[in-house]
């Protein structure tokens, strides 16, 4: 990418396209944004950075009109101001704020032209309302040319490379802007999460060109190396406040991590302590599958091992592979010193593994009752001499409801009528009843209220006291710091660091996750990048 030299901030005076003044947002019990002020200059790429819970997403949602800010602030787009407690999706659209979210909402099965027309209206003949295909494709061609997306509008979107999906989504969002003069603001929310590095280059090349043509871009990302490559200016949020706004050239990795985490980078290398000895329940060596490359680690009996990483780091793949949901390409896993390969989930279960998936839509049987949900993983226990002992099953369900403090009126209550937190407790209970040797938890407290969160971890702790080992993946690093005995940092499919007590702190985890993903990119990632352009 020779065209992508370090973006120099132009010294010429630029118009302010978006100005946020004294924006606050209070949720019951917490303040997500605290007196945030921010200026985005026209025709620049402005990055918004911050860790989990920094207020980034609240800010974006207020701009999109999904949330309203507290009274007292103002948001000015193109010199037109609006009170911050009065933003609506209609306002955002009228003001020219164009959003492209992480989930692009594009349709693989439709052509590029159809994707561009969806939500905007197809050109139709006056009488029969039949689509005027030639006009549709011609318009699409014009839009694609304007945004320099070099694809045939008649091709199915699903056949295109990933970066083109994002670019089509951007073109769709921006197509109604006038060609010159006043342009809206393109707001990209983590657009690169699902993109391989070569694809990120293509996307960034395009973004750079749009900016040069006068497009204002606000980019939300977790990836520092991307910020350094593309940002004209960066604003860092921490705990709902702006900690700094810096121009390109004024920051590097270390500086950004320091701003995000709130203290100077700990230069002390965290030497990974190799876990060895008799005590090991699980040994994973050189595991490669999907995004994972050569992952090696051990897990002790009765240990809670946390895994921290960004979305797309391979954290879910790690758990699903261990549980026999997908075969590994390379590597070995040993359980109790014996090599094991689980071809199927039931084999993994027989070996004493348990897995609570990230989404409850992958674990809840909503139409069935609480009892049936609790015994879903150990039903054969009640099958004896051609009789399913349902009374015993109901008794055990009642016991579990009490033991795991599930709020249910009876064991026959339809699962769908339980609250989210209680459903999740029941799902965890389903597995803990089996007394697993290894419990795999993927975001176990997502969408769960605070009280249930505490109870879920209390239940896990009890199991650990009974000898169960746990691997837990969560994006909530505060939570991870509280529950984990040891934390592995996963970035781009590799384990880049290990944290042991007393160094397990949320800020330290954030720091390592962010700098690890940056360091990784500078290494093999950069090489990959060059190769792809030869």
């Amino acid at each position, binding site marked *: 990418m020779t065209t992508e030299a370090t973006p120099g901030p132009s010294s010429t005076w630029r118009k302010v396209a978006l100005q946020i003044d004294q924006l606050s947002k209070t949720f019951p019990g917490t303040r997500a944004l605290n007196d945030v002020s921010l200026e985005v200059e026209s025709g620049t790429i402005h990055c918004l950075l911050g860790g989990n819970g920094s207020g980034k997403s609240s800010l974006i949602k207020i701009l999109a009109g999904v949330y309203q800010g507290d009274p007292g602030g103002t948001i000015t787009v193109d010199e037109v101001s609006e009170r911050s407690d009065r933003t609506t999706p209609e306002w955002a659209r009228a003001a020219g704020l164009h959003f492209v979210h992480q989930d692009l909402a594009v349709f693989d099965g439709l052509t590029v032209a159809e994707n561009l027309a969806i939500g905007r209206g197809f050109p139709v003949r006056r009488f029969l309302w039949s689509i005027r295909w030639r006009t549709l494709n011609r318009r699409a061609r014009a839009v694609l040319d304007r945004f320099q997306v070099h694809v045939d509008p008649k091709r199915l979107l699903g056949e295109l490379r990933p970066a083109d999906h994002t670019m089509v989504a951007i073109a769709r969002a921006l197509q109604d802007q006038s060609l010159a003069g006043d342009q809206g603001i393109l707001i990209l929310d983590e657009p690169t999460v699902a993109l391989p590095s070569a694809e990120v280059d293509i996307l960034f090349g395009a973004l750079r060109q749009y900016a040069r043509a006068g497009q204002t871009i606000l980019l939300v990302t977790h990836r520092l190396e991307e910020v350094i490559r593309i940002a004209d200016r960066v604003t860092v949020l921490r705990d709902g406040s702006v900690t700094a706004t810096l121009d390109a050239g004024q920051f590097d990795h270390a500086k950004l991590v320091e701003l995000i985490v709130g203290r100077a980078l700990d230069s002390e290398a965290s030497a990974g302590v190799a876990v060895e000895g008799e005590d090991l329940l699980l040994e994973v060596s050189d595991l490669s599958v999907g995004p994972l490359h050569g992952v090696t680690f051990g897990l002790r009996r009765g240990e809670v091992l946390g895994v921290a990483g960004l979305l797309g780091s391979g954290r879910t793949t790690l758990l699903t592979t261990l549980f026999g*949901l997908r075969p590994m390409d390379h590597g070995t896993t040993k359980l109790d010193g014996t090599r094991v390969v689980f071809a*199927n*989930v*039931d084999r*993994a*279960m027989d070996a004493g593994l348990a*897995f609570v*998936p990230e*989404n*409850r*839509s*992958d*674990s*809840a*049987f*909503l*139409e*069935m*009752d609480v009892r*049936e949900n609790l015994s*879903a*993983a150990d*039903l*054969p226990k*009640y*099958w004896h001499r*051609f*009789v*399913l002992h*349902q009374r015993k099953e109901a008794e055990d369900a009642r016991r579990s409801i009490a033991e795991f403090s599930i709020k249910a*009126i*009876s*064991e*026959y*209550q*339809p699962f*769908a*009528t*339980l*609250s*989210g937190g209680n*459903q999740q407790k029941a799902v965890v209970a*389903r597995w803990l009843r089996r007394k697993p040797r290894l419990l795999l938890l993927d975001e176990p407290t997502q*969408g769960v209220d605070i009280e249930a969160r505490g109870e879920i971890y209390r239940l896990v702790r009890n199991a650990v006291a009974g000898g169960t080992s746990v691997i837990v993946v969560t994006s909530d690093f505060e939570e991870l710091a509280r529950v984990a005995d040891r934390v592995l940092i996963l970035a781009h499919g590799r384990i880049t660091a290990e944290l042991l007590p007393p160094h397990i702190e949320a800020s330290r985890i954030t720091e390592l996750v962010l700098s690890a993903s940056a360091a990784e990119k500078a290494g093999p990632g950069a090489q990959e990048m060059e190769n792809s352009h030869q």
Partner: protein
Amino acid sequence: MSVESTPSDESLAATTTESLGSTSLERGGQSSLMFNFERFALPGLFAIVLIFFGTWSTTGHLFGTAANFQEVASNYVYIGILTLASLIPLVCGEFDFSVGQNAGFCQIVVATAMARFHVPLPFAVILAIAFGALVGLNNGNVVARLGVNSLIVTLGTSGILLGVVEWYTNGQSISLGISQSLLNFGSRNFGGIPEVVYLLVGVALVVYYLLEHTPYGRYLTSIGSNARAARLVGLRVDRLKLSAFVFSGALAGIAGVLLVAKNGSASPEAGSVTDTLSALAAAYLGATSIRPGRFNVLGAMLAVYFIGFSVAGLAIAGVQSWVSQVFSGGALFIAVVVSTLIGRRRLGTT
């Protein structure tokens, strides 16, 4: 998952009543009454139909007789078995649209075996069941292993079977050389009840046991509720679905044998997609009662005979045959709407 909704009083009360009547948490008597109404609406309607046609002066003298009851009971055994056949795939969330045509195919198999190849009755029956199961195996393989939509696959199977039957029989019925004991079984009574009814009761009991009292049935229900979650609790979803289609096919085979026993011959017209529709109607109608929101054997059997006696009553009253058609179609329509509403309420999404 956004099922954060707090349970409504109504559904809670409903559940407690459902729990075998053992838990007596009396909350909102009105809504528990409502639930019982829902649960026993079909049996209630059934009773009303029987009383109405039994006492109405136009129909009473014919409808209320033992002969009429035997006639209807015996005539609907075939649809009853087809209903059970379609029930098993429905429980795991799949359609078997080929059950009717499969029965039609299997009646040709059993009749041909006896008439042309002089196979003894027991082996002919086994052969028919085996052929039915084979058709199910084929359906199941394509649906479960390749993940093709079951409605389309089984509709295709149905068409193929129809063609095969026409080609093989050349449009001719097979009526000579059929075992006399099979014909006797189709026409005799035992203890005042048609012998074929005992067959239906037997098959229904087996399917009831299978679905309600074995882990297998629970597994199928789990798959029907959430196939991905079922996989994550260690169920071999594809194998289980495959087996459901095999069971369904085997039951269609039994239904085919029964057709021959009842009709005394194997006609290329008997056993068709129309019968499949009647079976699906009964299965859905059954899911509105006894265990509302779930496909269940008792409800389905009640539904079969509710439709059977209603149609018989209408016939005796002298209404034209299209009225009966509209009645059956209307029953399916209402059943699907009501069971969808019940399901939605159980999911708390209303």
